């Protein structure tokens, strides 16, 4: 006997009806690693953190991020970075500046070619990290130091994320048309549903109809 449901899709699954043994616990990484996603609302705006996705690699993470984080609001660009590639400073209290509390050691010997790093700031706890800018450095430590010089004065900054630019998958100029029609998908917006007229008309009819 298979399960008959009110949902025809479920009935078609031919699921066993009745007791089933417990499911074996899901193995680690069954749901993959996580990637952090940043979106850009409009051309002039800074990239802002929107949340993570679970994905097997950055290409698939991008596919997932696009629909999970930019299907419902204006968007012109998306960045995706593997969580493991992002380094995080400690958090300080609201109103403070984390750069003031970091003991940044001057890198002793500049080794290797400087490369770009992306810097994200959290201005207030509970809000989202936003892109402060890009610095050139040879290490994460060095990048934080450069970031402090470049944009660490304007506090409060309660937390900083640092990631190598090479580790960020960034949508390209020619990808922008993928978001072009998002604002037109009114069927998933509250503003598309207006029923006051119907209610008013209904009430009028009720009052005009003598009680039986």
């Amino acid at each position, binding site marked *: 006997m298979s399960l008959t449901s009110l949902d025809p899709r479920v009935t078609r699954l031919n699921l066993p009806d009745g007791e089933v043994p417990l499911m074996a616990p899901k193995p680690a990484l069954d749901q993959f690693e996580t990637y952090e996603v940043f979106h850009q609302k409009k051309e002039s705006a800074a990239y802002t953190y929107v949340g993570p996705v679970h994905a097997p690699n950055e290409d698939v993470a991008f*596919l997932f991020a696009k629909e999970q984080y930019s299907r419902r609001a204006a968007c012109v660009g998306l960045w995706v970075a593997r969580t493991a590639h992002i380094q995080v400073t400690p958090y300080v209290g609201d109103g403070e500046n984390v750069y003031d509390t970091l003991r940044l050691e001057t890198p002793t010997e500049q080794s290797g070619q400087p490369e770009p790093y992306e810097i994200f700031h959290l201005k207030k706890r509970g809000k989202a990290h936003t892109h402060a800018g890009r610095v050139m450095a040879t290490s994460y430590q060095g990048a934080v130091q450069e970031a402090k010089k470049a944009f660490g004065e304007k506090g409060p900054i309660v937390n900083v994320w640092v990631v190598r630019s090479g580790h960020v998958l960034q949508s390209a100029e020619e990808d922008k048309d*993928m978001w072009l029609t998002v604002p037109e998908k009114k069927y998933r917006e509250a503003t598309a549903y207006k029923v006051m007229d119907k209610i008013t008309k209904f009430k009028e009819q009720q009052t005009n109809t003598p009680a039986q």
Partner: protein
Amino acid sequence: MNEQAIKDLLYKLADDLLILGHRNSEWTGFGPILEEDIAFSSMAQDKIGHSLAFYTLLHELGEADPDTVAFTRNANQFHNSQLVELPNGEYDFSLIRHFLYDNAEIIRFEMLSQSSYEPIAKVATKLKGEVKYHVLHANTWIRNLGSSTEEAIARLQTSLNEALPYALGMFEPSAYEQDLIDASIYRGEEAVKAAWQQRIRAVLEKTELQLPDLESITPITGGRTGSHTHHLQPLLDEMAEVFKIDPAAEW
């Protein structure tokens, strides 16, 4: 004029999109991972939205309104290819169908955005960006899964072999093929098919999947003239179950 030809073109575009969108929506809540569930649903919504855009053009040409056209016709009045009406099967089949369909769809939309028939050109130009994501999604999945585990490759290969005769049926020429080409409304199924082969071949070559010799496959046609598998009528009955409680009512 070419009105009959344009209507025929619009019906096959719209019916393909409606039925595929409906099929893909069946996955909502049942996908292999939450994120993919969301992505697949978005594309299903887009397909239904695209079909609505084409039914709206038909309505402007004097056909019934989109709801009536979509929810009250019988299977033999539908012009979709049989590919899109087949049941979803497992995710391998749904992905392969998505890959085969959308790689043709993007070519159609690119061609139609150049159409001499302006209403179609406008719709295609506007919606092209959405189809671009659908193709990116399909190709990324096929590239990833197509060179992964033995099981995944075997599943995709089986589904590919099963789907190909139906996929070739998408290119069934219509009675108006030459009229559309002559009037620069649409470049015709042969042109779509040729470009499609190149596109799918380019993706499959990066995987361990084998593309069979397409010349040796007999396309399964008939969908464009209302001949369908036994899967379509139950799909339509299900889709219209509530609508038909009172077709005159506003739901």
